[in-house]
């Protein structure tokens, strides 16, 4: 065990897997020599050489597209996109090829690729540096989407993602890159993609959150506890394929659902989970499934972002409203 933050845990996963499988290559803009703008890949080029850990020209479409070719020809590419807001130039490659190669060729070719990118807001960043468009990727058949919220989960999920024979989009909540420290095993371990984690047990309300919002919700819950509320918190961990069973069981128990995400509201992840609550637990519902989210506006620059991203107070309001319904 070692105390690690999210950056260190991710670095450790990459390090161990690079050591483990010589077909793994890791690349991205400034991901090699520089070790990434967030230093997530720090030291890896030094350790594994420029052949396996390298910088690419500034061109995201070929970054992912070349990764597809590498995968087809036997490598296991880990592609870093510097910020998730810069993944869009590669969108065609992701939706048209990364996610379809296996189906298209009836399993002849697959794309065991991990696309890593820091995502989400709250760090007082420049425009396009706070994006949270996981619902878009979750809607793409053939793509798995994972968002860890703790160092422990990050490492275990990333190792699973790297070992997965299908493409996994691994979105790293950059706001909490260094915010949480945790005891994390130094060796390889795995967390199953598609399994949520129940962070707190409770009776009156099920909250589902992920990424940086997990912490925000935890703060709100602490507050709510003092007021005597009993809340179950599920960290989603995998956006697609998400863990319907765990969520539905919890809703059946608590009768209430609140989903929290920082992404824009309409057509966001929360809507789907609310729909699932209806389809699978309608008769158990004691209050309307609810959501606390970002708004349907462009994410404001720093002087406005505090109004945009859900905070503990907003979550707490929603907790009360849903429980008191």
């Amino acid at each position, binding site marked *: 065990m070692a105390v690690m933050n999210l950056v260190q845990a991710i670095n450790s996963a990459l390090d161990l897997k690079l050591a483990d499988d010589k077909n793994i290559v890791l690349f991205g803009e400034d991901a090699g020599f520089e070790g990434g703008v967030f230093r997530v890949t720090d030291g890896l080029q030094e350790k594994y050489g420029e052949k396996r850990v390298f910088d*690419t020209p500034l061109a995201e*479409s070929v970054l992912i597209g070349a990764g*597809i070719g590498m995968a087809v*020809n036997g490598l296991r590419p880990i592609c870093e996109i510097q910020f998730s807001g810069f993944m869009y130039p590669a969108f065609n490659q992701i939706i048209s090829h990364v996610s379809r190669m296996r189906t298209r060729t009836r399993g002849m070719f697959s794309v065991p690729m991990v696309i890593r990118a820091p995502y989400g807001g709250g760090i007082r960043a420049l425009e396009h540096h706070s994006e949270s468009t996981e619902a878009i990727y979750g809607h793409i058949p053939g793509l798995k989407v994972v968002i860890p919220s703790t160092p422990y989960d990050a490492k275990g999920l990333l190792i699973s993602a790297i070992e997965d024979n299908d493409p996994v989009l691994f979105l790293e909540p950059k706001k909490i890159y260094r915010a949480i420290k945790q005891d994390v095993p130094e060796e390889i371990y795995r967390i199953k993609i598609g399994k949520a984690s129940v962070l707190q047990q409770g009776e009156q309300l099920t909250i589902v959150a992920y990424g940086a919002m997990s912490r925000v919700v935890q703060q709100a819950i602490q507050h709510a506890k003092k007021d005597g509320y009993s809340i179950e918190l599920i960290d989603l961990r995998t956006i697609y*394929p998400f863990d319907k069973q765990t969520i539905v069981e919890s809703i059946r128990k608590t009768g209430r659902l609140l989903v929290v995400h920082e992404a824009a509201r309409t057509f966001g992840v929360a809507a789907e989970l609310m729909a699932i609550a209806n389809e699978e637990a309608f008769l158990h519902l004691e209050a309307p499934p609810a959501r606390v989210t970002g708004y349907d506006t462009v994410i404001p620059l720093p002087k406005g972002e505090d109004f945009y991203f859900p905070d503990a107070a907003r979550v707490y309001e929603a907790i009360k409203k849903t429980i008191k319904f």
Partner: protein
Amino acid sequence: MFSTFDPLQGKRLTIMNESGEIVAPEWMPKLPDDKIVDAYKTMLYARIGDLKAVSYQRQGRLYTLPTNIGQEAAAVGSALALEKTDWMVPAYRELGAWLVKGATMRDYFFYFGGSEEGSRYPDGTRLLPVSVPITSQLTHAVGIGFASNYKGEKDVVITYFGDGGSSQGDFHEALNWAAVFSCPTIFFCNNNGYAISLPREKQTKSKTIAQKAIAYDMPGIQIDGNDLFAVYRATSEAVKYARDGNGPVLIEAITYRLGAHTTSDDPSRYRSAEEEKEWEAKDPLLRLRVWLEKKGLWDDAKEKDYSEEATSDIESQFAEFEQYKATPIEDIFKYTFEEMPDSLKEQMIEVRNHVNRMGG
């Protein structure tokens, strides 16, 4: 060769002219006669396959498909320059090349007949499936070449695209990457003069597509794409160049599709009958046949025999395809991921139940 045929100086490699005469003997590839006869046969086979496919489509037995007629030399000649372990990353209009690489008309019929089975080529074919989003496949070819280098293997990759495809951002990104990382990738442009209705002159202002190689400091060459010998020779040089570790090459083959863009297209809307006539005279099969006949390697009887043989082979492959009625429900779901997640299992059961209820 690449320095001799500088596209900026208007140079283009032609070895055999439209009349089947060898006009540049110094570049004539050293191909044994039987290989050349085989190449001609493959071109003829591809042509018959293409015409058959179009006619099946007209009968409603296949769906919309692109036509290949007129581009057989570029397809077959380039593919013949590869070794079996080399890779091929196609667009969608290189039937002759796929056949050389190991795909079959059966695959072709399945694919354009509406089944993904058509993209599951025989094991180890090292042929990627049709890529519909224009030019996106060039990046895959770069990655395959990268992996080949990485593993210390000597396999090269050829990838195809059209004149229209040269305008896409992926063209630029792929060529740049390939050059930066010295990927053994041959970018083969089938410049057939049109992107659907848009003539080449309106696609880009540069006089050639070959000269775009200069932007990446890689060799670029323009060749007569209807001359099997020029195609084979230039591609062989490019393959050798790439295999020797020198990096990528761009080849622009000047050709023409004698047919429509796809079976849904009517080329008479955007090009003249005279132009089509002109290009009919440049038919890649015609000129090779003249050459073969002069050498005594081919004649009318052989043409007739082989055409019949090819036709019946193609027909029997089509018959095999026509047994296939519908995609099994399971197949729609099971290749989405290696392991089917619960959500897909539930959805699959939903479809099955519905079909059962309907008595399907």
